[in-house]
């Protein structure tokens, strides 16, 4: 007799966190991608003609180990709805431990956001190899869905580009992204 009761409770709990997703909400997500893995995986996903949401804006790094706490915070501050770092598989970092450092920093940012009353789930660390085009697309899709469920970043600021802010915070650390023609347009625009 007890079993159905427990099952009923579980069902309620499982349904409770599901938020009403605003169909018009298109989150802006910043991805800090390692040149050696995730960035190449994104290329592969493209070659494989895999579909993934256009909500993600990539920034290429020489290694996720170059990512610092302030870079993630700047993106959130500028209104990014979600931010994630995508580095090499653990144990396969080109610079040995860069991805492990990145994970620690992402975890620290989660703590800081929790202290501020912002959902820590808005930042995440993922690992993948350059051969994982499918995983790249899956991560992008799942994370976008996660952010859609969380809703917009409460600190969204009009007229501020989280992608540009994150790039600016990174300074010379971010690698140029030839494929991203929109980035060039922004730079040209700001030079006027």
């Amino acid at each position, binding site marked *: 007799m007890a079993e159905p009761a427990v099952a009923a409770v579980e069902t309620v709990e499982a349904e409770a966190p599901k938020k009403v997703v605003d169909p018009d909400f298109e989150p802006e997500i910043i991805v800090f991608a390692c040149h050696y893995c995730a960035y190449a995986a994104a290329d592969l996903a493209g070659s494989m003609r895999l579909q993934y949401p256009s909500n993600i804006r990539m920034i290429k790094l020489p290694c996720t180990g170059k990512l*610092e706490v302030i870079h993630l915070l700047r993106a959130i501050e500028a209104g990014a709805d979600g931010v994630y770092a995508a580095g090499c598989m653990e144990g396969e970092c080109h610079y040995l431990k860069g991805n492990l450092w990145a994970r620690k920093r992402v975890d620290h940012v989660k703590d*800081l956001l929790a202290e501020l009353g912002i959902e820590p789930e808005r930042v995440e660390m993922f690992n993948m190899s350059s051969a994982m085009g499918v995983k790249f697309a899956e991560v992008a899709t799942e994370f976008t869905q996660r952010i859609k469920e969380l809703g917009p970043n*409460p600190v*969204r600021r009009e007229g501020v580009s989280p992608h540009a802010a994150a790039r600016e915070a990174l300074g010379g650390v971010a690698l140029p992204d030839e494929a991203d023609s929109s980035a060039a347009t922004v730079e040209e625009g700001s030079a006027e």
Partner: protein
Amino acid sequence: MITAERKPFDEIIELVGDKKKILVAGCDTCVAICLTGGEKEAEILASELRIKAGQDGRAVEVEHTAAIRQCEWEYLDMIAEKVEAADVVLSLACGIGIQSMAEKFAPQIVVPAVNTNMLGMPQEHAVWLERCGACGECVIGETAGVCPVVRCSKSLMNGPCGGSHDGLCEVTTPQKEDIECAWALIWERLKAQGREELMYVNRPPKNWSKSSSGGPRKMVREEAKPV
């Protein structure tokens, strides 16, 4: 070096109050080395404050800066303009730096964003251990280079006490980690030095008036004063 830990964010928010123009001031000496209050950490705190303000829908201007050493007037001159333009200064320096700032820029409001906690030694990257209590009368010449004032939980001058077992103190750190018994360390090191007799010296009660118990201390080096 002097070490400090950042205060909880809620406490910082309370200290800042409803001020609109906030300057987060780091110090690039001790607190930068202990990864708590350098320019990098000042930038992070400033960003957090802006995120918080954005979340609450409040218009707040937050800037960050850092002095090479907040505890010296000359270095404070370099950030004077920013300090004077702010409604409140949130300092990430140790207690000395914060007070120097509050004194130099009085009546500017300077509030601490950190709790200064000890004179510590880096044991490994990102781990610090207390090593000196600045007691004003150093005894480590007789205790084989181990300070009983801060490394013995009871600051005993004639240890060990009954709480010493297998080289460990009966007290643990706030993180619930074991503390080495200072007097067990002293004994082992004196033995290695062949100076066991120092263990049997009866040390009279320490003169704490040379420590902070004697009131605020002042040090003057006459020979070094400008002519």
